[in-house]
């Protein structure tokens, strides 16, 4: 119920009954229709929201509406709402950015650039309304909004309604004529409008002098006029009221609210004051607060009917709020008249929200009631569930809100707050908090306050776990591992999450030092713990790493099983046909297993299935991983232009994560360049990345050094120069030592194949054959094939020799068969490509290719010498024909269908 309440922030406000048409503002609003930015800036109660709503309602332009509140000063919250609103208005435009944002792995500007780029080719304009922007305006949000304003595509119109001018470069916008401003002077009702409001709309039938007096006294402030109407309604002698009102020097709203309250029956007046402590009202909540239970519903209906400043928040009219200005005055009355009742009202609200499971509001009201202990207890109880649901943003708020005094005796709460800080990368002060927690644990148990004693048992393990995380962040793997081991030793039986987290940290640290045997063991423990703790989405992420390590370790069959098991888990745990995020990543990883086994049709089919699941099934890294996998497939087919186009695209959409980048995309690209015969570009990669045969070798750069060896061999094949051959042999020998010492069986197979070729080229057939024989022995059990098929001439001769020596080797027989087929027929996977029922036109293919670049809509238009509108129309046709709704999906579908290959230069 209360989560649904957040939805109300994205609803357009309902049209208000009875508004005066603002014809006076027509020309201003007509300019605003075209303006990039419209600023509606005026004090409270000037009818900003009503104006924007009634201005945009009749238009056919879609509107993304966000009603901001105080919580949106935090960028996390602000971005989530804005991206959700945009994606609902233009489906596909911001979904991927939202995932990336929630994963905390990219800065706001990077993601927004992608969203704005998408909107820049969207066929149709849209308006983004940020209502009550003053509530969110702060340094973080302002910086992001300034970026949006600077990069606004022509299709997007931004409307801000605010009580204070925003921290944006307004003078620059004014100078460029990109800003329309609607301010208090414009919003104020003039004489005619006041007359229309009082006499036409509310039938008060006042004489011109009375209208003029009210206009002067209220200065055309619509809220004051509204209150005046409430005071005048059903009055026997309106003139007397007007005379008194205009003769009084009091602040207009103060005077009028008192008037209005004075005229209410006692029970209504009491209800208004009681419920003024609430930010949002619903019948049962009002009942919980009042001494007259059961009246909530009828009372809210009556208030709405009487126009008493209640604003409905949802379609069903179950939630309302008071008009802000009215609520402020009510609260001031409550403070003055019944200050002693305020804590009890908040206490009752807190209890109601706690029962409804809305812990955030419950804690807020408990704090307002002065019940710090209750607030602390509610927070402590809620934290485990918030952690599971990845709602650390809520926990983070409590770090600021809960008084230090109440945390001092609560070790479980204190460690929970640390969890919130860690999840938001806020590491400063964490160590001091951990020391405090340890000091608490040293005190007698009778002095401590703990809600769930079971949670207390986990605190020592969690202290060490967070220390391990701090050490990892500061780049100290040795300390990470030792703290993680202490955490594992301290974790009580059944605390799967602490065990999993500490093992994961130890695994990451081991991986970073190149000890992948230990890293693998740690990750397996981590995944099992996560599964027992029911964190299924994290099990998927963890399985990817495990499979990656298994490939490096030479355990191809195990990698296959790990991924299939995770896939099966995702299928069983995905609820109501919803595909669990990470499922697509499993399929992409499995395609790599199939590629290693040279089952290219299966690899292609897996990639097709991953693509068909859509963006919501993938982790933020999936777009680039999918492209790398598809590039490998095309390279296996010797379709070099497609392979290179894909790998360039992969670099463009690359998103890192916490893992060490042991297979950098640029190195994969260099391998493809070398294999395709483009030695010049491959060698420029060597120079750019400073990869040298004489480097100190380490696991972290092993992939790059093997790439260098491949380039040296390719150079020797092309030119016959023996210098680079010798260099390659020395490098490969050293790499082999390292891979063997590290237990990296997968790498050993690859290196032995390359050594066999190198020695063969050097005319040393015995060592060549020995190396190949060793590679075959290692590859045979799990069926590694691809490493033997990639390198160039010489392999056929060597395999023939080996076949005589090892007539019983099935692997050698299979490899010889493949080579007899002419290495590989081109496009063996064409059947998996499919065709379009309605093919793209040549022009659409031109646009499609540019959609794969970083160019925005206007730049694409310039490139093709057409108008932006033409680009937009083509884009819409392309999306429809490909069955996608954004650029990234269009490009991957195009690669899938081989469209870019056929048009490649």
């Amino acid at each position, binding site marked *: 119920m209360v989560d649904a309440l957040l939805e109300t922030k994205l609803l357009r406000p309902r049209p208000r009954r009875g508004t005066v048409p603002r014809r006076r503002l027509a020309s201003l609003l007509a300019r605003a229709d075209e303006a990039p930015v419209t600023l509606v800036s005026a*004090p*409270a*109660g*000037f009818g900003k929201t009503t104006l924007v709503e009634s201005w945009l309602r009749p238009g056919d332009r879609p509107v993304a509406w966000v009603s901001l509140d105080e919580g949106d000063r935090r960028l996390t919250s602000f971005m989530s709402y804005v991206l959700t609103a945009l994606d609902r208005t233009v489906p596909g435009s911001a979904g991927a950015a939202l995932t990336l944002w929630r994963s905390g792995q990219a800065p706001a500007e990077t993601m927004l650039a992608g969203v704005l780029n998408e909107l820049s080719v969207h066929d149709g304009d849209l308006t983004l309304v940020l209502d009550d922007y*003053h509530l969110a305006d702060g340094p973080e949000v302002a910086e992001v909004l300034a970026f949006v304003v600077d990069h606004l595509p022509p299709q997007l119109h931004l409307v801000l309604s605010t*009580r*204070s001018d925003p921290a944006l470069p307004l003078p620059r916008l004014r100078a460029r004529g990109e800003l329309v401003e609607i301010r208090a002077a414009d919003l104020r009702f003039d004489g005619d409008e006041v007359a229309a409001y009082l006499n036409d709309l509310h039938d008060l039938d006042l004489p011109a002098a009375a209208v003029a007096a009210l206009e002067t006294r209220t200065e055309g*402030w619509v*809220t004051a006029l509204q209150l005046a109407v409430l005071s005048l309604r059903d009055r026997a002698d309106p003139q007397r009221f007007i005379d008194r009102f205009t003769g*009084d*020097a*009091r*602040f*207009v*709203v*103060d005077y009028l609210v*008192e008037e209005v309250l004075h005229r209410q029956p006692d029970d209504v007046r009491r209800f208004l004051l009681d419920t003024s402590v609430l930010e949002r009202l619903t019948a049962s909540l009002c009942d919980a607060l009042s001494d007259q239970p059961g009246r909530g519903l009828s009372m809210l209906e009556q208030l709405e009917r009487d126009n008493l400043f209640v604003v409905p928040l949802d379609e069903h009219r179950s939630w309302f709020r008071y008009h*802000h*200005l009215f609520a*402020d*005055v009510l*609260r*001031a*009355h409550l*403070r*003055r*008249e019944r*200050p002693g009742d305020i804590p009890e009202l908040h206490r009752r609200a807190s209890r109601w929200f706690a029962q409804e499971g809305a812990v955030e509001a419950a804690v807020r009201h408990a704090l307002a009631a002065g019940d710090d202990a209750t607030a602390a207890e509610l927070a402590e109880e809620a934290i485990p569930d918030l952690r599971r649901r990845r709602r650390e943003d809520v926990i983070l708020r409590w770090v600021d809100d809960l008084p230090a005094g109440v945390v001092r005796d609560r070790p479980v709460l204190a460690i929970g707050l640390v969890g919130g800080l860690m999840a938001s990368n806020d590491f400063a002060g964490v160590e001091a908090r951990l020391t405090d927690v340890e000091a608490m644990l040293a005190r007698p148990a009778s002095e401590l306050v703990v809600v769930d004693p079971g949670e207390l048992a986990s605190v020592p393990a969690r202290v060490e776990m967070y220390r391990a995380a701090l050490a990892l962040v500061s780049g100290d793997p040795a300390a990470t591992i030792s703290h993680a081991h202490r955490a594992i030793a301290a974790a009580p039986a059944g605390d799967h999450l602490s065990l999993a987290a500490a093992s994961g940290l130890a695994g990451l640290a081991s991986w970073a030092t190149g000890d992948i045997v230990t890293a693998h063991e740690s990750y397996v423990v981590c995944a099992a713990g996560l599964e027992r703790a029911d964190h299924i989405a994290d099990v998927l992420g963890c399985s990817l790493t495990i499979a990656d390590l298994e490939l490096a370790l030479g355990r191809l069959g195990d990698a296959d099983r790990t991924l299939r098991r995770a896939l099966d888990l995702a299928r069983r745990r995905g609820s109501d046909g919803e595909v669990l995020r990470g499922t697509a990543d499993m399929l992409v990883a499995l395609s790599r297993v199939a590629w290693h086994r040279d089952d290219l049709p299966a690899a292609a089919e897996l990639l097709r299935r991953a693509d068909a699941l859509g963006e919501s099934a993938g982790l933020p890294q999936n777009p680039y991983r999918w492209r790398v996998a598809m590039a490998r497939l095309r390279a296996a087919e010797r379709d070099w232009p497609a392979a290179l186009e894909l790998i360039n695209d992969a670099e463009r959409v690359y998103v890192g994560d916490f893992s060490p980048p042991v297979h950098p995309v640029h190195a994969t690209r260099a391998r493809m360049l070398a294999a395709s015969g483009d030695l010049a570009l491959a060698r420029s990669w060597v120079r750019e990345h400073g990869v040298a045969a004489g480097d100190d070798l380490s696991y972290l750069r092993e992939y790059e050094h093997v790439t260098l060896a491949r380039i040296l061999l390719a150079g020797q094949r092309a030119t016959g120069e023996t210098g680079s051959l010798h260099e390659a042999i020395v490098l490969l020998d050293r790499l082999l030592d390292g891979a063997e010492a590290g237990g990296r069986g997968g790498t050993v197979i690859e290196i032995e194949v390359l050594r066999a070729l190198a020695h063969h080229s050097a005319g040393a057939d015995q060592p060549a054959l020995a190396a190949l024989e060793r590679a075959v022995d290692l590859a045979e059990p799990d069926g590694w094939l691809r490493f033997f098929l990639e390198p160039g001439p010489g392999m056929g001769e060597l395999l023939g020799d080996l076949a005589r020596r090892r007539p019983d080797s099935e692997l050698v027989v299979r490899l010889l068969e493949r080579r007899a087929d002419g290495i590989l027929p081109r496009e063996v996977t064409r059947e998996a490509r499919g065709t379009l029922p309605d093919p793209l036109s040549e022009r659409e293919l031109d646009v499609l290719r540019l959609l794969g670049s970083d160019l925005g809509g206007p730049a694409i238009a310039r490139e093709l010498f057409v108008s932006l509108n033409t680009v937009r129309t083509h884009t819409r046709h392309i999306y429809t024909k490909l069955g996608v709704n954004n650029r990234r999906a269009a490009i991957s579908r195009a690669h899938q269908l081989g469209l870019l290959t056929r048009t490649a230069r």
Partner: protein
Amino acid sequence: MSTAHEPDRVEIRLRGHLDERWSSWFDGLTVELEADGVTLLRGRVADQSALHGLLARLRDLGIPLISVAVVPVPSQQSRTRGTQP
């Protein structure tokens, strides 16, 4: 405005008379009514952020602001200020 812990005295003038009940709303500032419908809020605020919070509350009430004056409270530190360059 001093950055020391000494609270500052503020005098805020508003257009329109405010009822005395607003005193607690505005952190206990006294509400004094002057001629010509001007309200004077007077008292101490803890620091700059308290002052900004106060101004935001006035903004949210929509009451027109005429002037804001901050009068430093004389303290030992401020008395020696003259000797600093």
